């Protein structure tokens, strides 16, 4: 009787058959309330003991009709709603929507405002990656890096607060520019922060990235090849972790990114340079480490911004004068920018009035999450948080 039981898992076909133990598959609901699903993601796992045979993500628990709202308010009023999509990278969301509307309407943005935008987008990229890195440590059971990351993020939020008064949902970058000019001593405070922050990245690396247990937990887990990454439409650090050196800031420079000198980090095989052994291109560790390296690149960009930013011009200001009254032509536009989590695209269709006929957001987390069904197969239960965490999903943006 025992011999008739075939291995349920095709991947284990070559493994010695343990026919004397009758195992039963179990469906486990991971989420919507679960510590490491980063919000209200629900994943249904089909498990055989500790092995996960299949994982099916279910989303929509945070759906707030953001796109429908976009059809009822003017672009200038819609900017605060974009904050609520990827709430960890509000500045970048504002920027994406503002750029899409500006391209559609042809609004010119003052140069100083462009510098401010780039600067804040990069600062917010650091803040967002800090959360990603910290919570990823948390997923792996390391509590301390999380608080270190939040300590630094707190200072970033202070910088944001000094510029726009908000600490999470900024609406600072808006259609036609930014809402307000920088405070007087911002350049000094910001440089001080960058000087303080840059060595801290080494701390995170020593504490978490190169930790043997951490590498063992994430290296070679959830490997996504470059071809699959493109096939599934993955973007951002998830795509670059698979060894695809594609970054919209380089590939299709928006704003003034072509003026800056920076590098695009990609996932590298283990054993090269500082990459520990056991790491495979496209695994969780590579995706994680791309974020760490991107923070350094962001610091570089911000330093160049602080150096080159033109002086405030009273006459021109930092925002286009018609930003609140602009009419959208009967046309459509689709524009993508490089968000911390990937490419955030906004499709905006006008109909001649001041209110868009259709606003559609291409959330990077939404597109990245669809690979979970493919990557979260035939792994251990403990690998599922590792894979989800390395995607760095923000459910506010997945469900919109």
């Amino acid at each position: 009787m025992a011999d008739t039981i075939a291995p349920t898992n095709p991947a284990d076909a070559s493994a010695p058959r343990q026919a004397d133990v009758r195992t039963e598959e179990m469906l486990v609901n991971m989420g919507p309330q679960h510590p490491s699903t980063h919000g209200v993601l629900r994943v249904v796992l089909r498990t055989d003991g500790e092995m996960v045979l299949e994982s099916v993500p279910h989303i929509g628990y945070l759906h707030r009709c953001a796109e429908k709202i976009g059809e009822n308010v003017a672009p200038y009023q819609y900017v605060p709603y974009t904050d609520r999509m990827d709430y960890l990278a509000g500045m970048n969301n504002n920027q994406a929507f503002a750029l899409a509307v500006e391209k559609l309407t042809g609004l010119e943005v003052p140069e100083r405002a462009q510098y401010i935008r780039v600067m804040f987008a990069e600062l917010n990229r650091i803040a967002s990656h800090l959360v990603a890195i910290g919570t990823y440590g948390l997923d792996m059971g390391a509590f301390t890096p999380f608080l270190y990351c939040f300590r630094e993020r707190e200072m970033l939020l202070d910088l944001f607060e000094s510029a726009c008064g908000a600490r999470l949902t900024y609406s600072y970058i808006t259609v036609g520019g930014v809402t307000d000019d920088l405070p007087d001593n911002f350049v000094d405070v910001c440089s001080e922060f960058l000087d303080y922050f840059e060595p801290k990245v080494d701390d995170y690396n020593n504490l978490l990235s190169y930790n043997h247990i951490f590498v063992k937990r994430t290296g070679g887990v959830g490997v996504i090849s470059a071809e699959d990454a493109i096939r599934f439409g993955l973007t951002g650090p998830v795509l670059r972790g698979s060894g695809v050196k594609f970054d919209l800031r380089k590939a299709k420079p928006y704003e003034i990114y072509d003026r800056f000198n920076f590098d695009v980090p990609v996932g590298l095989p283990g054993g090269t340079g500082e990459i520990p052994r056991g790491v495979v291109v496209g695994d969780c560790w590579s995706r994680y480490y791309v974020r760490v390296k991107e923070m350094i690149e962001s610091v570089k960009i911000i330093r160049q911004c602080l150096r080159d930013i033109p002086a405030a011009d009273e006459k021109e200001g930092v925002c286009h004068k018609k930003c609140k009254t602009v009419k959208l032509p009967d046309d459509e536009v689709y524009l993508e920018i490089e968000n911390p989590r990937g490419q955030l695209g906004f499709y905006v269709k006008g109909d001649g009035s001041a209110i868009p006929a259709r606003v559609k957001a291409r959330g990077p987390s939404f597109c990245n999450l669809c690979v979970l069904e493919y990557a979260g197969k035939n792994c251990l239960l403990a690998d599922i948080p590792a894979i989800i965490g390395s995607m760095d999903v923000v459910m506010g943006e997945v469900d919109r």
Partner: protein
Amino acid sequence: MSFEEICQILKSQFGDAIEETAVDSCRPYVVVSNDKWTEVATFLRNDQRMAFDFVQCISAIDLLADDKLACVYDLAAMSPVSATEDMTYARELAVRVTTDRNNPQIASVAHLWAAADWHEREAYDLMGIDFPGHPNLERILCPDDWVGHPLRKDYAHPLEYHGIPGTTEHELKSPRH
């Protein structure tokens, strides 16, 4: 390869199936006939000159004035995969496929681009477009028993869902609030 060149290749290949090329648009797009969409999509994906391997976005739109629904496919072809050189988009193309509002059907392209899977489910959920050939066409954002497709222009907001009362815009503007 510019937008015009892509249009020329498509027109020479499919003729009338390319209904319109909106060159002057802010972001140029081609309109592909609904019944030829599968062939065009396969050509865009597999032809050596096209090789659009990356789906940026699929946006469903409601063209209420024309009594039509449409899907806008933003496709891109990536330059050869490299871990050392900065890659770019070799070419980009926006394709619009319209469909009848009463029986909206657009052939699925999920078998060509894995990324299209969830985008099509979202379009089905929020705009009610059917994608024949999709492996798992279910609601993705709304609950499975939700009635109607919220992003349609004529969508009526339900006033009750499983005992949860809904609010209309009229109520929100009333002096009670």
